[in-house]
């Protein structure tokens, strides 16, 4: 294998050194996008936790008691994960939880779609059954969650990013 050494400007993604320069910033972008989504999603649900409970009940996937617990517990968890990713603290673990949650949501929404249900995903508040005449957005919701899952996976595989508390801890 020939390793070329170039001096001066190089297209950033066309060689090994270029990838090492760009990838960490992809990681930061993933952290910031995920943090924004989690903090907003959790934050919008915190003022009305009973509505969050109803959103989970609407899926009819969990027994009512467990659905209640998830409905009450998910919004603060979302905010916590968002804050960790924003700070870049314990990034790999926060990203792993983020990815697992996205998998759970994709399964839930797919299940509702497959059963012909008509519900709002409740991802950013609201939720529950849709009124007559409103159609669900399952495809776009799943697509969005797949994207967020990919961002989480990137951070699980490459958790070391610049501008992070993790990096400060490492002393890098």
């Amino acid at each position, binding site marked *: 294998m020939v390793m070329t050494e170039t001096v001066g400007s190089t297209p950033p993604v066309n060689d090994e050194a270029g990838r090492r320069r760009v990838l960490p910033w992809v990681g930061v972008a993933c952290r910031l996008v995920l943090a924004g989504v989690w903090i907003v999603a959790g934050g919008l649900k915190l003022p009305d936790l*009973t509505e969050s409970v*109803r959103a989970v*009940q609407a899926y009819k996937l969990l027994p009512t008691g467990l659905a209640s617990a998830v409905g009450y517990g998910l919004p603060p968890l979302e905010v916590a994960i968002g804050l960790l990713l924003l700070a870049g603290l314990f990034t790999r673990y926060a990203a792993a939880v983020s990815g697992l949650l996205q998998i759970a949501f994709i399964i839930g929404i797919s299940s509702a779609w497959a059963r012909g249900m008509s*519900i709002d995903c409740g991802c950013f508040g609201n939720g529950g059954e849709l009124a*007559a005449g409103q159609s669900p957005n399952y495809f776009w919701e799943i697509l969005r969650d797949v994207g967020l899952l990919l961002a989480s996976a990137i951070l699980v595989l490459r958790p070391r990013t610049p501008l992070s508390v993790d990096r400060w801890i490492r002393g890098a």
Partner: protein
Amino acid sequence: MGKAQRQRQAAQVVREQIAAEQRRKRTLIAVGVAVAVLIVGGAIGYGIYQGNKETKVTEPTAATVGYGFETGTGPVTVDLYVDFMCPSCKAFEQQYETQLQQAAADGQITLIKHPVAILNRMSQGTDYSTRAGASSVCAADDGKFTEFATALFAAQPEENTPGLTNGELADIGKGVGLGDTFVACTNAQTYASWIDKGTEQASEDGLSGTPYVKINGESVELKDFGATLDAAITAAGGASADPSASTS
């Protein structure tokens, strides 16, 4: 191995130990800050939770069953959860109310109606769902819950409007024969927190939208309600409640 090499190796080991010590210290600081944030957040949340719990909930003088009002004593229990601003609840009322009242009168069912408030965001900040629900509890105290509920659905305001004022609710009540106690109770919104607590309980019990019905404790899809009700009544030994379905 030469002395210089040993010295270099020793210095390397010391450097690594210092670095590891720094990582440990910094990890502790970061974890400490994170735990502090968690505690503060948890304390704020807990404080709000306690504050809500202490909101005085006035219990109705009327008899209640699971934050609902009961009609009839039949063997089949029908729980119906309605929000007075919900158009599907009005449609359900128009389709089934007569049949349900008849079945209760005939001793076939015990009908329990639960007023809930899940559509407050549709009344532009006036919380119509809670106010109408609270007003219906005032009507229950004077023994006219069923008539008042029917009248409320007949006068149902559109979603995304401020809904009816407390004065208009009082007038509807007077229209079904309710008096000054009811009017005062409606204007004071005595039972608003009872409605909110009932909504919370219903949400924990599976409510995700209205109307929500359960027959003998099992939730039932709206499209299957008529058939499931008939089957339950027949199973309990009564004739079908729907006269058009009788076979004789």
